[in-house]
């Protein structure tokens, strides 16, 4: 290991060191780090709520928390994890850091909008924390009416205002990405040469832009109805409580694609690099990303199969839900085909990517189970659904998040992380995750309802297994906190391209200078010119390795 005080050449980290130069920065790389700090903070808040829930559920009668507090815990867990961790996670950290670098630009199209987005995010977080400390809410993260509008005690209006403001942050970020990708690509960076991570960010941004405003309106309508005592969801006036669910899920289903599309982009980058092989079916992969983005808007009614929508509507949404699985499956097939006869290195990022492929597939297949009308009657609002979405969001998206974090860590910080610790954490995470959530499939099948503070005693063994898994998972999440921090102080100095990867981001220094590139690069190669047979790699600006 090299000495502590290493002189890193002038880079974005050391450019200027005042607080003002950070919190009013125009540098997309600094904005990425600021977001990283914010979302990590909220990850641990959401994780704290999850910890309390899993500890509480060790006993069937629920000894730890009062029922009312239990309800507030799962509500807080959902709101924080969805809007303050998962949705921003990859886009605001890796997206912000990498999009300009990967396309050969000096920054995003609207740098001031970028830092403003971070401040808006923090404002929304502050409002939410205020609501939580004042006692929180117990409506579930889904704010269903008429409970949220008429009966819930707690700070519903404050909570929906927090999420409303958070939506602006999302829209600002997405707008920036869309315009940047259209307008700031370096010469030679045709659409057909874009890394799949960029395509994924683009697709995600389109979904963010089209879905979030509808959420905003659904929240406004809740706030108004709660404030005025009358509204369009009120059955006493002839309104429809299900209208809220239509509006809410029109956003919230695409929201899960907002969470998974960037993760898929990351996985594509990791799989090609660590298999030393061009991605199988690049064109199919880009169409699949776009198809997921579009089809994801057509399925929202599958959250309402038993809520009272018409059977005809249920059939339409069930069919759409089956169709949306197709592009996802294509991606899994293509990743697998990429791995086939590749020269696979099992570095930590690859372990996370492999974990993603397996866990996402399980989550996705169980999605088809609940998309089946007849089965959903039995499984809806049970732990089966909880297991299904955690397999995708945690097993999938969070794995990809950690994979990308490790992969680009040398680029972002100029340091290498300790490989053995990282592999250990990845394996521990995979094991802990499965022990936590696989028993929940069984619990759901057996009929255990979600959002209940107590359960039938015969289900205890599965709950204990799940909680045991959760403790392993929590430890696995804490490990990177320690060894990544350690790497900042004593990690070995990273070369510009420690992975010999092909992306333009690896042609800049590690860490990059403030303006990314001295001269705008010219792109002469496709995104994944890895030749597994000869071991020759060609970066996108033409540099040859091996």
């Amino acid at each position, binding site marked *: 290991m090299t000495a502590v005080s290493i002189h890193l050449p002038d880079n974005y980290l050391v450019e200027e060191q005042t607080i003002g130069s950070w919190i009013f920065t125009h540098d997309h790389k600094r904005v990425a780090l600021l977001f990283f700090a914010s979302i990590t903070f909220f990850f641990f808040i959401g994780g704290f709520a999850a910890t309390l829930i899993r500890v509480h559920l060790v006993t069937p009668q629920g000894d730890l928390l009062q029922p009312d507090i239990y309800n507030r815990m799962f509500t807080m867990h959902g709101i924080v994890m969805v809007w303050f961790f998962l949705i921003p996670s990859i886009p605001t950290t890796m997206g912000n850091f990498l999009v300009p670098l990967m396309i050969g630009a000096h920054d995003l*199209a*609207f740098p001031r909008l970028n830092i403003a987005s971070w401040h808006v995010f923090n404002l929304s977080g502050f409002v939410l924390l205020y609501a939580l400390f004042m006692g929180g809410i117990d409506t579930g993260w889904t704010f269903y009416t008429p409970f949220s509008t008429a009966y819930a005690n707690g700070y519903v209006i404050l909570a929906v205002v927090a999420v409303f403001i958070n939506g602006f942050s999302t*829209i600002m970020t997405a*707008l920036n990405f*869309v*315009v940047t990708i*259209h*307008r*700031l690509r370096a010469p030679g960076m045709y659409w057909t040469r874009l890394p799949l991570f960029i395509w994924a960010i683009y697709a995600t941004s389109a979904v963010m*832009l*089209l*879905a*979030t*405003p*509808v959420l*905003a*309106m*659904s929240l*406004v*309508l809740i706030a*108004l109805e709660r*404030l*005025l*005592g*009358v*509204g*369009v969801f009120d059955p*006493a*006036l*002839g*309104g*429809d409580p299900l*209208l809220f669910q*239509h*509006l809410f899920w029109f956003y919230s289903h695409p929201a899960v694609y907002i969470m998974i599309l960037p993760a898929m982009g990351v996985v594509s980058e990791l799989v090609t690099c660590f298999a030393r092989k061009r991605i199988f079916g690049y064109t199919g992969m880009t169409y699949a990303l776009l198809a997921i983005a579009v089809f994801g808007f057509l399925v929202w009614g599958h959250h309402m199969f038993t809520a009272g929508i018409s059977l005809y509507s249920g059939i339409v949404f069930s069919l759409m839900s089956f169709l949306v699985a197709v592009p996802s499956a294509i991606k899994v097939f293509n990743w697998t085909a990429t791995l086939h006869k590749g020269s696979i290195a099992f570095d930590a990022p690859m372990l996370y990517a492999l974990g993603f492929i397996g866990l996402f597939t399980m989550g996705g297949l169980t999605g088809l189970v609940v998309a089946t009308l007849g089965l959903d009657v039995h499984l809806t609002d049970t732990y089966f659904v909880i297991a299904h979405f955690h397999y995708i969001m945690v097993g999938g998206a969070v794995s990809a998040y950690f994979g990308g974090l490790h992969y680009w860590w040398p680029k972002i910080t100029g340091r290498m992380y300790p490989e053995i610790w990282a592999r250990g954490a990845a394996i521990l995470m995979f094991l802990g995750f499965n022990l936590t959530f696989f028993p929940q499939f069984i619990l759901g099948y057996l009929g255990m309802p979600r959002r209940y503070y107590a359960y039938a005693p015969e289900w205890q063994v599965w709950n204990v297994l799940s909680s045991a898994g959760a403790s392993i998972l929590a430890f696995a999440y804490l490990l990177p906190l320690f060894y990544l921090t350690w790497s900042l102080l004593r990690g070995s100095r990273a070369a510009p391209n420690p992975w010999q990867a092909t992306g333009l981001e690896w042609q800049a220094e590690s860490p990059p200078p403030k303006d990314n590139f001295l001269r705008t690069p010219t792109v002469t190669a496709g995104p994944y010119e890895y030749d597994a047979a000869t071991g020759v790699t060609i970066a996108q600006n033409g540099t040859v390795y091996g």
Partner: protein
Amino acid sequence: MPQQAEAATLGIWVFLATEVLFFSGMLLAYAVLRKAYPAGFAEASRETKIVIGTINTAVLLTSSATMAWAVHAAEAGHRRLLAWLLAATAALGLVFLALKGVEYSQEYDEHLVPGLNFSSASPHEHAIELFYFLYFGLTGIHALHLTIGIVVVAVVAVRAWRAAFAPAYYTPVEITGLYWHFVDLVWIFLYPLIYLNGRSGG
């Protein structure tokens, strides 16, 4: 720089697309409830102030014309004309808000404000209350957007007066104009939905 002007214009169009979807939620509520309670919604519409509504529509359409003319003036480098046209646009916006205020106060007097003092003797009382919830919701959010527009137009007008723009650079005028036209566009659709329903019946 032309690249930045292009980027800004693209950005504002993206933003306007999100605004379309923002209003869509409440418009869906309107569509669902009007389909469910056609008679009640028609009766409620008949009680709206069609004179004020129509004048306000004409006011906004004209303000869009002055705004578009202002962009033309900016392109041509006519500094004073630009500033006056922007001022006229903002002024027309204020006229709209003033008339809206008069309208709202009349509706308050007539006990048509849900959550405050709504009461109706009609057999369609509930549907009428739902209509007015949406009426105040839609026009209120529209008025909020209009107010933001007026402030932005006023700021741009002052900058124009101080010669901040030239034919080579008038991007803020352009994107303000696009936003303003969008606010007008929303109203163009709200007008028939709120004011014109049921006029031939009842």
